[in-house]
């Protein structure tokens, strides 16, 4: 320990080596000099210790002091942070600011797994210089994100605050703005959606005592008259088998996992949010059981040593049979995907068995990664797809079936591969079969589907906004700000208003093309075809005019936002459950005299209702969409710093207090008469991912 910070020291032939962790960014962008928090626009910035910029990062000060002190008298420095933009930038800023300009003489360690073998090899083959261009691109990204974020967010918050009617911390940014706009556009599309009617024809035939469902050749019949005509023509009639077509098709093995595809698959099978998948994958990486997860590559280079990894996997009971089966092949050729990342290969298991206990999410994700790794070495699966066409006059009906001839790679990827098998009726061409049932069903076109965190992540990826490492975090921020809610994402009225205001006053911020262009410029810095200063100047010249327009429209923006913020705040404090005495809405209110908060009835003035319920006086309250299992009243979540989250039912709490008092007054009361609902529900709150689903 050195100044409260753990470090490791070992002795080699060249001398003593000190290793100290960086625990993420220790330096961050901040305002140059003293600038009040309500001032905007802000253009002057510099890199500062994160402890000076963020109140919650004060503990990082001792880290900087410890690293600075350990670095004194060192003759060599190595940046061994993760080999990516963020890792390069973390190392560069620490070496430059905490180690007094040591970045000029530092070398870089490159590795993709935390296995003993790879770390030793990476230390032996150090890159003589830091990857400055990568770090410069990262630096520019942070500076631009800070400039956009602080100026736009302050413009929104301060313009609302100046109206003196309501307060809310509002934020937007270079990536947040377009992402939110995707959700808002979809929300507006759903809100104003007009469904179109259509009819489906559902028919059933019976062959050898088994029923088969037929599809009408036209899956959507546009008019009721046409649908009824088909039913009238075919009812009680025989259908003739016109043809039976069978074709075989190969399904290639899946591509190795890059981060987005891992996040998509984890969402599909386990419903993990992208940020949760990333966090779990990082824990597995730190445990040296999988490779670096923040990768865009879908390729597994030969020098990884496929055979050795598979051999190690075959030592693990769960995978011994399958890994052994792959190892029988003389040549191991994995399926390779189209995407590549020069820094890291696709995500793969290192083969090393987990050294410590894995939690359920870690076990699930590890299993998914291992099975996918084995599947990419599998043969293509072979299936047959058969289609039988049956006719009556001009009307054709179809029935389809599928059969697996050779499981191929799907055997290695089970239970994550889709297995479906269906049989055709045993009928030959020209044979006739009676239609048992036929009906036309009126249906309506469904509105476009809502985004979920996975499909929103894919949309961001398609539009080239954000990075693989930050997209999940951006989505989490939208939840935290109250802009989006539920797992099938809904935009709140506040989000719709912010998008509308930004579209009116600074449409550039919502344009995904603008953000994608910026990403291209950042890539050019990485490729050394542009400099950081050049990109900053070019981008800021555009952004200054955006900010000028926003400052001019401050009053307009403030008055529009204010109304929505006030409405949203009121909505957030209103309970779903009505007052049990008068039926009016119940709200969380604060007493003007005692300053205590409680649930009060809004019918107090009109109806003279005095119904009220107590609430916890400390911590942040959130009204949940869940209802109490005992009394059906809306549950309240209380979050306090340093305490466990608490979900409670205000009504049950009161009942319990009343019962206790009653017992005290009448000690002979029958305990069996106590109602079940008089139990305060105190239990651990769900995780943040589950919160989103509420």
């Amino acid at each position: 320990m050195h100044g409260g910070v753990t470090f490791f020291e070992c002795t080699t032939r060249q001398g003593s080596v000190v290793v100290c962790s960086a625990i993420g960014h220790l330096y961050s962008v901040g305002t140059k000099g003293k600038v009040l928090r309500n001032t905007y626009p802000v253009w002057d910035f510099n890199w500062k210790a994160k402890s000076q910029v963020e109140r919650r990062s004060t503990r990082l000060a001792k880290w900087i002091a410890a690293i600075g002190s350990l670095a004194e008298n060192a003759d060599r420095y190595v940046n061994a942070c993760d080999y990516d933009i963020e890792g390069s930038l973390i190392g560069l800023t620490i070496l430059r600011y905490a180690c007094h300009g040591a970045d000029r003489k530092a070398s870089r360690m490159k590795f993709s797994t935390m296995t003993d073998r790879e770390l030793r090899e990476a230390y032996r083959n150090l890159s003589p210089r830091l990857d400055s261009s990568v770090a410069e691109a990262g630096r520019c990204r942070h500076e631009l994100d800070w400039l956009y974020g602080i100026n736009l967010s302050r413009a929104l918050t301060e313009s609302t605050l100046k109206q003196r009617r309501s307060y809310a911390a509002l934020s937007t940014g270079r990536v947040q703005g377009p992402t939110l706009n995707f959700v808002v556009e979809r929300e507006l599309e759903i809100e104003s959606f007009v469904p179109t009617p259509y009819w489906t024809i559902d028919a059933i035939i019976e062959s050898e005592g088994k029923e088969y469902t037929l599809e009408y050749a036209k899956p959507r019949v546009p008019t009721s008259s046409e649908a009824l005509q088909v039913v009238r023509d075919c009812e009680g009639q025989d259908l003739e088998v016109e043809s039976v077509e069978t074709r075989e098709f190969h399904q290639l093995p899946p591509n190795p996992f890059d981060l987005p595809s891992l996040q998509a698959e984890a969402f599909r099978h386990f419903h993990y949010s992208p940020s949760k998948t990333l966090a779990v994958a990082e824990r597995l990486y730190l445990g040296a059981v999988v490779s670096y997860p923040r990768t865009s590559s879908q390729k597994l280079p030969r020098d990884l040593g496929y055979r050795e990894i598979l051999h190690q996997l075959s030592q693990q009971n769960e995978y011994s049979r399958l890994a052994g089966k792959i190892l029988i092949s003389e040549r191991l050729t994995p399926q390779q995907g189209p995407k590549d990342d020069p820094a890291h290969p696709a995500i793969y298991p290192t083969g090393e068995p987990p050294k410590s206990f894995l939690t359920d999410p870690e076990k699930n994700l590890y299993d998914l990664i291992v099975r996918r790794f084995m599947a990419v070495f599998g043969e293509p699966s072979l299936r047959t797809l058969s289609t039988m066409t049956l006719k009556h006059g001009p009307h054709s009906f179809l029935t389809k079936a599928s059969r697996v001839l050779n499981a191929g790679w799907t055997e290695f990827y089970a239970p994550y591969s889709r297995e479906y098998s269906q049989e055709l009726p045993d009928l030959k061409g020209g044979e006739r079969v009676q239609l048992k049932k036929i009906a036309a069903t009126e249906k309506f076109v469904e509105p476009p589907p809502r985004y979920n965190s996975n499909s929103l992540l894919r949309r961001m990826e398609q539009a080239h906004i954000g990075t693989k490492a930050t997209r999940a975090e951006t989505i989490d921020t939208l939840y935290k700000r109250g802009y989006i809610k539920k797992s099938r994402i809904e935009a709140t009225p506040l989000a719709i208003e912010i998008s509308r205001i930004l579209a009116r006053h600074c449409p550039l911020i919502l344009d995904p093309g603008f953000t994608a262009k910026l990403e291209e410029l950042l890539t050019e810095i990485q490729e050394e075809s542009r400099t950081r200063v050049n990109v900053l100047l070019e981008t800021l010249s555009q952004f200054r005019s955006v900010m000028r327009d926003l400052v001019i429209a401050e009053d307009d923006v403030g008055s529009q936002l204010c109304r929505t913020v006030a409405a949203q705040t009121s909505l957030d404090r209103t309970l779903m459950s009505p007052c049990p005495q008068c039926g009016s809405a119940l709200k969380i209110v604060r007493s003007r005299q005692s300053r205590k908060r409680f649930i009060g009835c809004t019918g107090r003035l009109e109806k003279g209702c005095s119904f009220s319920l107590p609430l916890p006086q400390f911590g942040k309250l959130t009204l949940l969409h869940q209802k109490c299992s005992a009394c059906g009243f809306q549950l309240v979540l209380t979050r306090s710093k340093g305490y466990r989250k608490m979900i409670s039912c205000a009504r049950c709490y009161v009942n319990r207090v009343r019962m206790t008092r009653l017992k005290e007054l009448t000690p002979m009361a029958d305990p069996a008469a106590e109602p079940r609902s008089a139990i305060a529900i105190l239990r651990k709150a769900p995780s943040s991912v589950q919160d989103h689903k509420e």
Partner: protein
Amino acid sequence: MSKKSSTDCPICGFEAATSEDMYCAPHEKASANIRSAFSVWKLAYGNLTYPRFIEKLSKLPQAGTRTREVAKFLLRQER
């Protein structure tokens, strides 16, 4: 709170999309969608009247919330 003017949306009270529009932007969009959908519905059902169309629309769960609001408003006006 701003005073209600003649250009406010009769459904939600927000400012009308343009001076020529009756509704605010989201309700105006829903109204335009309703207008263009009527011909498709008429063709689909054969002899569908406009009041019957908006009545059906106002109760459809697949219809958007703004669409249902406009349909209910139009229905009240029809009556």
